């Protein structure tokens, strides 16, 4: 185990426990909304973009606040977002290549 100090903790202000709790509540409510929306069959295909946006919002909240990307060095964000963008590109490239919805 390391005996190292965490440099990012020395200089950056991190959110309070209260904010972490509020974010957890938002994540729970958004998940409940996702499950609720799923049962609204009259939404038809609109369900896909709606769930996509809600899911992206949850992802961003966890990455920015819980993983501290909002407060840490930008290079960390670049490394993670770089991998994420590549992964997303691979998903969409394969979807179009294999014409999944045709």
């Amino acid at each position, binding site marked *: 185990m*390391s005996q190292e100090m965490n440099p990012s903790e020395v200089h950056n202000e991190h959110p309070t426990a209260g904010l972490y709790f509020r974010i957890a509540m938002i994540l729970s409510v958004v998940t409940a909304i996702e499950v609720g929306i799923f049962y609204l069959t009259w939404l038809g295909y609109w369900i*896909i973009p709606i769930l996509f946006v809600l899911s992206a919002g949850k992802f961003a909240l966890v990455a920015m606040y819980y993983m501290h990307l909002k407060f840490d060095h930008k290079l960390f964000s670049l490394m993670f977002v770089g991998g994420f963008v590549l992964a997303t590109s691979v998903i969409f490239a*394969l979807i179009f290549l294999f014409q999944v919805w045709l």
Partner: protein
Amino acid sequence: MAQEHIATADHGEHEATTTGLNHRKMLMWAFLGSDCMFFGSLIATYLVYQGKSLSGPLPIDVFDIPVTSVSTFVLLMSSMSMVLAYSALNRGNMKAFRIWMVSTAIMGSTFIGFQVYEFSSFSTHHIHFECSEVAEKIEHGEYVKAGHNHFYQKECLDQNGILKADHHVDEEYGLKPQTNLFGTTFFTLTGFHGAHVTLGVVWLLSIFFLSFKKGVITREKNLDVDLAALYWHFVDVVWIVIFTVVYLFGVFEGF
């Protein structure tokens, strides 16, 4: 960056780096970036083979959204307890830190428990219905699950296509990795995620026990906890994507 470099050197805790950033933390972010691509390829494979299975069961036959919603909630809450553990450590409150760490590990284990239950129920899934009920649905143009339709055609109609009104269907319709393309891609994706969570639980418990050793985990030496927390939140964000793309989209009739 420059400030961090100076601060690092001042504390004399570890060697100065060219970026001024801690190498271990940099490595963790590089790993998480690469793990994004790993899960991205598994999700892409799942989506590409979505609806391409030649036989059932299909997602709509086996998924139980309320159960998976509860396990998703548990994993989200474990992320909160993880971040509260880290926050407690930064305040120097070791008692709260240990409580939150154990809570996180328990919730992680609970999530794994849900996954074991889910995998087990999928593999032993049974399909049972009254032929007359399905016939009524078909007559009214209502949606009939793929599995129900399969056994309806097979067992509810006689050689002349006449409905056996009193017939009852009760058949094993389990999903295993070798059953069809859905089973293979689903178990590979969620199985790898489950393995990540299991590793995370072991990591968290290791830190919890090490925290009793004097001077190993302290307010000043919090990097090990920070790295474990990053990993834990990562498995959470991956599940956020899996829950939407695999589970919710999977049982959506038009998908």
